[in-house]
């Protein structure tokens, strides 16, 4: 097969593990760092035979020329990245920034809600709103205290930070909707709520804000292939319309998104994903097993 990037690829500058599931990769790509805006994403391939996966840009540093991706190891591709990606190794492909950037101007007071993996991508939005002159309240949710990350980064750019943990070991006990409810209770003049996280969480946030009539924006991350509007795999129902999350979004009006449809579509390849993960886990177990000295060990992909 044609291989244009065999020796190049995209260098991983740093890796940081937040938990046994979540890790951060900082990737050198000066042009992308310069072009990226809050709300946008990239499509990455870890190796030549990998799949193309969409990952929200969690941060970018224009002077260093790097972008930051936060990845949750849940399937074959992301677990393989967790195993193989190190500082100094390279990703086969990183393309972006994709999607329409979030609209950040013209807001006086906003609440930025990030749950689980959504904490990372909500950060550039919170910072962007602050830079555009808004009063920013961040609501970030984690399972427990030891999984909390980037609290300091949010504290540095937000006027208020509400941490929520499922077990109450830090901040407010409960999920992000508890924190969101608290914030809405304290502030009657919120212009917009931006929520990023798993579909269930975004749906719950949209339901929380609906009675208050607060404009709510959610960032959708459906299954994608190309990320350029060419395949329609990422189509979502918004109101009565079909939209492609990759080029028409990823931000949509949370009160109009059909979350039920989105959740069904996210399970589209559930069986294939499960089988691929099992096959891969098995091959890892075989590779990790100490080899008898006589047998030649199979070459592992770098």
């Amino acid at each position, binding site marked *: *097969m*044609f291989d*244009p*990037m065999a020796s190049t690829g*995209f260098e991983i500058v740093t890796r940081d593990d937040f938990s046994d599931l979540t890790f951060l990769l900082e990737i050198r790509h000066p*042009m*992308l760092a310069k*072009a990226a805006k809050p709300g*946008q994403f990239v499509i990455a*391939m870890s190796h030549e*035979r*990998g*799949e*193309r996966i969409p990952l929200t840009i969690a941060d970018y540093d224009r002077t260093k020329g790097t972008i930051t991706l936060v990845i949750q190891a849940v399937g*074959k*591709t992301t677990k393989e990245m967790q195993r193989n990606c190190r500082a100094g190794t390279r990703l*086969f*492909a*990183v*393309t*972006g*920034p*994709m999607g*329409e950037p979030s609209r950040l101007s013209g807001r006086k007071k906003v609440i930025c809600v990030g749950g689980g993996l959504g904490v990372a991508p909500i950060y550039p939005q919170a910072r962007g709103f602050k830079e555009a002159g808004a009063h920013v309240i961040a609501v970030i949710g984690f399972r427990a205290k030891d999984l909390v990350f980037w609290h300091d980064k949010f504290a540095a750019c937000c006027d208020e930070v509400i941490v929520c943990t499922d077990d109450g070991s830090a901040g407010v006990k409960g999920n992000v909707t508890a924190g969101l409810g608290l914030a809405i209770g304290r502030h009657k003049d919120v212009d917009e709520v931006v929520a990023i996280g798993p579909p269930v969480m975004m749906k719950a946030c949209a339901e929380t804000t609906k009675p208050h009539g607060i404009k709510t924006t959610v960032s959708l991350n459906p299954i994608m*292939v*190309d*990320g*350029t*509007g*060419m*395949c*329609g*795999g990422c*189509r*979502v*129902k918004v109101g009565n319309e*079909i939209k*492609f999350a990759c*080029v*028409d979004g990823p931000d949509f009006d949370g009160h109009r998104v059909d979350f039920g*449809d989105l959740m*069904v*579509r996210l*399970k*589209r*390849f559930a069986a*294939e*994903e499960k089988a*691929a993960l099992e096959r891969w886990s098995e091959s890892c177990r075989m590779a990790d097993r100490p080899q008898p000295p006589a047998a030649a060990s199979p070459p592992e992909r770098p």
Partner: protein
Amino acid sequence: MADRKKKKTIRTIPRDRAPVREQAPGERVRNFAEVTHGFRVEDALHEADRCLLCPDPVCVPGCPVNIDIPRFIAKISDKDYRGAYDVITETNLLPAVCGRVCPQENQCEGPCVVGDSYAPVAIGRLERFVGDMAIEKGWTSVPYVEPNGFKIGIVGSGPAGMACAADMAKAGCDVVVYEAFHVPGGVLRYGIPDFRLPNEVIDAEIDKLKMLGVRFECNTLVGRLFTIEQMIGELGFDAVFIGTGAGYPSFLGVPGDSLNGVLSANELLTRCNMMRAKDASYDTPLPLGSRVAVIGAGNTAMDAMRVCRRLGAEQVHCVYRRTRNEAPARAEEVHHAEEEGIEFHWLTAPVEILDDGKGGVRGMRCVRMELGEPDASGRRRPVPVAGSEHEFACDLVVVAIGTNANPIIGQTSKIKLDRRGYIEVDDDMATSLIGVYAGGDIVTGAATVIEAMGAGRKAAHSMKAYLCLRDTDAVYRSGPPPAAARLFGMDAAERNFARIRSA
């Protein structure tokens, strides 16, 4: 050489086309290898012998890039295959591709006068013969190019972009082609399956562009990574060509459209062809069905059906609201699909896709259609037959009913678009931005590979004029000119050139 002096007539040429060897249908539905084998030398000579070498050929205007067809066929008859290749590559850079994927029956072979009595000369197969031989022997037509210092950016590495890149590189420009995917080739790579156009052919044609000095930059989404305006401004391109293709597939707009068992042909083909999902060592998953319905009857629909067949679907059905006569696919593709056991349901249209209760598809509700009055496209408009609703069982629905304009360039630049979102160009393929040209599907909507290449070349012609470059389309033929063409001992081609003696 001598026996060609005798003028050929319709009575003296062989009546029948040279036989074309194909993989047997039963065999080929189990593999992705190419269906149609190329001509052997004897087949090519036989077929070339069928050409009347008309002095005023009608096939040449039928070709979107005006290949000098009789001249290359005459070279084949002379067994000067390299010469034939040189004739084709004067105007068409990708003979191995076009010989395979052009709808020749509507282009060069349509008006062929031999076709009035017998089957027309198989021009496409001869072109492919020459193109394949060039790849096999490693021939290239790389002219000596004097760099002129101009920098050209091409957006999209599909057929339009490739054709434009080649012409600009031959004119001496420094050409960079940007591609959003991780591999170049555009629709040739993601859309057309291996059994119609093997990847090695695309690679070989791209390598030829690289030999001309064209650089390919993959993983680059123009518009988002940098805009068209930035290309002309801070990135220092002297001219830009946009050939991003149509993309953005249409869906049916009926209830059940977003079920998990419904996908666009583009998605199926991209997963299978470009992401190699059919190969278990690649990670991209592939939706499989045992009873597949493909909506539409264009080339993309035919490709999707034949891909599904090869992926192991027990039954593959084509559902089309008009009849076979209106089907836009190449005749050969419909024929091949029929041979491969695809069932055709003409005059049938889906009105609803039915849920299996788990987010998948259990079938469609369809209506029968009949043809009414001609519509704007000149084809008779299908109208539903009252009371003809029926259920159609299937577990995968592939939608191949066309595409809309890709919005990215429009979202990120001030370039003028038409009502439907395609880029607006004038007769010279110039857009509303100075120095920016466009062509192919992003201007016309979905069309053919060769039409896109024709548009790319036309744009290149205008770009050369814009940059005040000599038009390299005027081919200088080497060899001694006839005496009459010499004036005072000088070649007529050199007239008006002042000879300067260097000190």
